[in-house]
C-alpha cells in the first residue's frame, strides 16, 4: 500500500501564512530567519519587500516570479504588516492527519496507528509540491518499504541516507528521527502487522495535539478502544484467529462487497488489518482486527454487522481460513433515552 504526504509548503497556500491568507499584492513578505525550508512558487506576485530565511529556497515554477512595487502602492495592503510564513517545522511524520492512504475506498478507514506509514508501505511525497517533514524524536527508526521524493524513489538505505544528507534532503527532512527503507514486500497473504505499535505514543500525541491532548468523549456507553486507535469509539470489534489459508485482501473485499454495501449498514466505517495479539494468549501471535465504527447518531448497525460476520465465519470459516472469531460491542449512545 502507499501513503501520500498531504501538507505542503507552497507559497500560494493560505494555511502556510500567518492570519491564514497569502500575502496581499504589493505587500511585505517575511520568512522566519532560522527555519530551513523549500517553498514552491507557482504564480507571479508583487511584493514590496521579501525577507528570505538564512537557509532555504524559493523554487520558481515556469511563469512564477516576483515583481517589485514600492510599499503603499497597493491600496488593499492596509497597514503593511508583513505576511509571515508559518513555522515549516510544524509538520510531523507521526501526525495521522498529514497522510492519505493510496488505496482509500468508500466505507474503509484505518486505525490511527495505521494512518501513518507502516513497515511495508511505499511513502510518496508528491513531486508537484514543496514540503517539510519532522522525523520525530528518534526513539526508534521509522521503517518503510520505499520513499519517493522529488521524483526519485529510494529503496536502499545508502541512497536514502545520501539524499537526506544532501542540501535538498536537509531542506525537507529534519529532526533526530531516523528513516530506513527495506524493499521487502509483505509476502504473507494473511497480511502483515503495521509495525507502528512502538510509535503509537507519538502518533496519538500528534493526533490529539489540536484537541488539547485529550480524547473527545465517546458518544456511547462502553466505548471500545481497538488496537492502534488513540481514542475510544462507538461500534464493534471483531477479532479473527486466522489459519494458513486466510487472505487479508480477499477478506477485506468480502466485508466491503458482500456486507457493507447493504442498506442496513449505511453510515458504518470498516477497518480490517492484522494486529499483534496480546502476549498472554495462545499459539498465534497475530490476529485479524475488524473495526466497525458508527459515524452517525444511530446505534446497533455495527453490532448487527459484527454478528453477520460471525455467522459468515460459522458458515464459511474453513474456506476463509478463519479458525475462531470473537466480538465486542459498545453500548447505547450517551444521552439517548436519559
Amino acid at each position, binding site marked *: 500500500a502507499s501513503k501520500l504526504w498531504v501538507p505542503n509548503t507552497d507559497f500560494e497556500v493560505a494555511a502556510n501564512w500567518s492570519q491564514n491568507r497569502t500575502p496581499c499584492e504589493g505587500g511585505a513578505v517575511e520568512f522566519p530567519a532560522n527555519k530551513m525550508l523549500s517553498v514552491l512558487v507557482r504564480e*507571479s506576485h*508583487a511584493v514590496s519587500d521579501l525577507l528570505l530565511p538564512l537557509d532555504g529556497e524559493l523554487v*520558481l515554477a*515556469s*511563469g512564477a*516570479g*516576483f515583481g*517589485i*512595487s514600492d510599499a503603499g502602492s497597493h491600496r488593499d495592503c492596509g497597514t503593511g504588516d508583513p505576511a509571515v510564513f508559518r513555522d515549516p517545522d510544524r509538520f510531523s511524520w507521526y501526525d495521522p492527519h498529514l497522510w492519505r492512504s493510496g488505496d482509500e475506498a468508500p466505507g474503509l478507514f484505518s486505525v490511527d496507528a495505521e494512518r501513518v506509514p507502516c513497515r511495508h508501505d511505499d511513502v510518496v511525497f508528491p513531486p508537484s509540491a514543496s514540503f517539510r517533514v519532522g522525523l520525530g524524536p528518534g526513539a526508534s527508526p521509522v521503517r518503510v518499504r520505499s520513499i519517493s521524493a522529488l521524483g526519485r524513489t529510494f529503496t536502499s538505505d545508502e541512497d536514502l541516507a545520501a539524499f537526506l544528507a544532501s542540501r535538498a534532503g536537509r531542506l525537507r527532512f529534519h529532526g533526530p528521527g531516523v528513516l530506513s527503507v527495506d524493499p521487502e514486500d509483505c509476502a504473507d497473504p494473511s497480511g502483515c502487522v503495521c509495525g507502528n505499535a512502538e510509535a503509537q505514543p507519538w502518533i496519538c500525541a500528534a493526533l490529539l495535539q489540536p484537541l488539547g491532548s485529550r480524547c473527545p468523549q465517546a458518544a456511547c456507553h462502553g466505548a471500545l478502544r481497538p488496537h492502534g486507535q488513540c481514542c475510544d469509539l462507538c461500534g464493534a470489534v471483531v477479532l479473527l484467529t486466522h489459519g494458513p489459508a486466510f487472505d487479508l485482501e480477499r477478506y477485506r473485499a468480502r466485508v466491503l462487497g458482500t456486507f457493507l454495501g447493504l442498506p442496513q449498514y449505511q453510515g458504518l466505517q470498516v477497518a480490517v488489518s492484522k494486529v499483534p495479539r496480546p502476549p498472554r494468549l495462545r499459539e498465534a501471535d497475530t490476529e485479524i482486527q475488524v473495526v466497525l465504527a458508527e459515524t452517525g447518531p444511530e446505534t446497533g448497525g455495527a453490532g448487527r454487522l459484527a454478528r453477520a460476520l460471525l455467522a459468515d465465519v460459522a458458515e464459511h470459516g474453513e474456506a476463509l481460513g478463519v479458525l475462531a472469531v470473537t466480538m465486542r460491542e459498545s453500548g447505547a449512545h450517551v444521552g439517548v433515552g436519559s
Partner: protein
Amino acid sequence: DLQQPRMAAERGNLVFLTGSAQNIEFRTGSLGKIKLNDEDFSECLHQIQKNKEDIIELKRSTVGLPQNISSQIHQLNSKLVDL
C-alpha cells in the same frame, strides 16, 4: 504591471527584467562578494581597470612613434649606402 522590475522563471531560465527606467541592483556588505559562476565580479572589474591602465601606459610609451619607423630606418640606410 509589466513595467515593474521583476524576477521570473521562463521555461526554466531565471530572468531579471526591468521596464524602461528602473534598475536591478545587487548589493552585498563590504565583505561580501558577487560571484557569477564562481568568478568574483570585483576581480573582473579589477582586471578591466588594470587593462585600461596598461593600455594608457602603452599608449604613452608608444606615442610619437612615427607610423612608418621601418620605412624611415630603411630610408636612412639607403642614404648611408648612397654616401
